[in-house]
């Protein structure tokens, strides 16, 4: 209802601002170039031609937190690394998302000891958790698609 009925078929697609912004955000997520352990190998493989994350507009990994809006925590976070990770997160501009990739980032994994943070959600808010040790690239892509759905469904009231 609206402009297309008044002006006839102009080949114009109408939508809400919410949906348009959600679509734009979800299709150009720039991840932070940031790997902590063996999960980073799978993340690199996901980036590389065989699995090709550029299909989702994510081929551009930024080495600076100020230019990225997704942090993929790929690996175990040691207690000494935790303030560094939080610092990187704080430097990322809004809107920003976090994927906890693998068991270690999600819950500590096999490293149930004094040196490792028991889940990165102790220090940063996590949007998607991905199980696996390490998760295969398909699993990471599945998590990324889940995140895309989440970004697309984000209502106007949640925008910052």
């Amino acid at each position, binding site marked *: 209802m609206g402009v297309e009925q008044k002006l006839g078929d102009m080949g114009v697609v109408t939508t809400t601002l919410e949906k348009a912004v959600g679509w734009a955000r979800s299709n150009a997520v720039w991840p932070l170039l940031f790997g902590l352990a063996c999960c980073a190998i799978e993340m690199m493989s996901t980036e590389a031609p065989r699995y090709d994350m550029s299909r989702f507009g994510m081929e551009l990994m930024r080495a600076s937190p100020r230019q990225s809006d997704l942090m993929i925590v790929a690996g175990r976070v040691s*207690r*000494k690394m935790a303030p560094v990770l939080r610092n990187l997160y704080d430097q990322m501009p809004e809107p920003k998302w976090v994927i906890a990739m693998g068991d270690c980032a999600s819950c*500590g994994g096999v490293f*149930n*000891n*004094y*040196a490792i943070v*028991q889940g990165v959600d102790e220090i940063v808010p996590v949007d998607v958790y991905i199980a696996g040790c390490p998760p295969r690239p398909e699993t990471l892509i599945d998590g990324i698609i889940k995140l895309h759905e989440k970004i697309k469904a984000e209502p106007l009231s949640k925008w910052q």
Partner: protein
Amino acid sequence: MSDLINIPDGLVSKTDVFRGEVTLNVTRENVIALLTHLRDEQKFDMLTDETCVDYHPREPRFGILYQLYSVSRNTRVRVKMMLSEHDAVAPSATGLWKNANWMEREVYDLFGIHYEGHPDMRRILLPNDYVGHPLRKEIPVAVEENQFSFNRERVDAGKIYVTE
């Protein structure tokens, strides 16, 4: 192997030989003199490792180990010193080998052994605000209880992990 290492009388309290590995047990008073003798007279010029073992609940509790290697003789020797929990202070070997610096900081970090005469006695691996020395035996190995079918409800309820 043990006859290759001639130690002046009174320095070593006991010599153990196990499958060709020589361990020289020494008291805290004599350890620096023994290490100096081994380095200067016996050509044990390399400190391969300096570390600590917690023998809790045995007393004296901590065993400080020095693994020495002689490049020219291709021989190894271990020097072992026992320390009590209430007096866990060791003389620093940084005057003999420079690389003892970081190894002693590591022992201090993880076991809480203080080294007298060390130039830079602070933590090396853990964050500076870390409380405690985690490789001591009274510290639990796990920080979170693993959830199985027999303790599912208790872990979900968030009960604190009890080790003993």
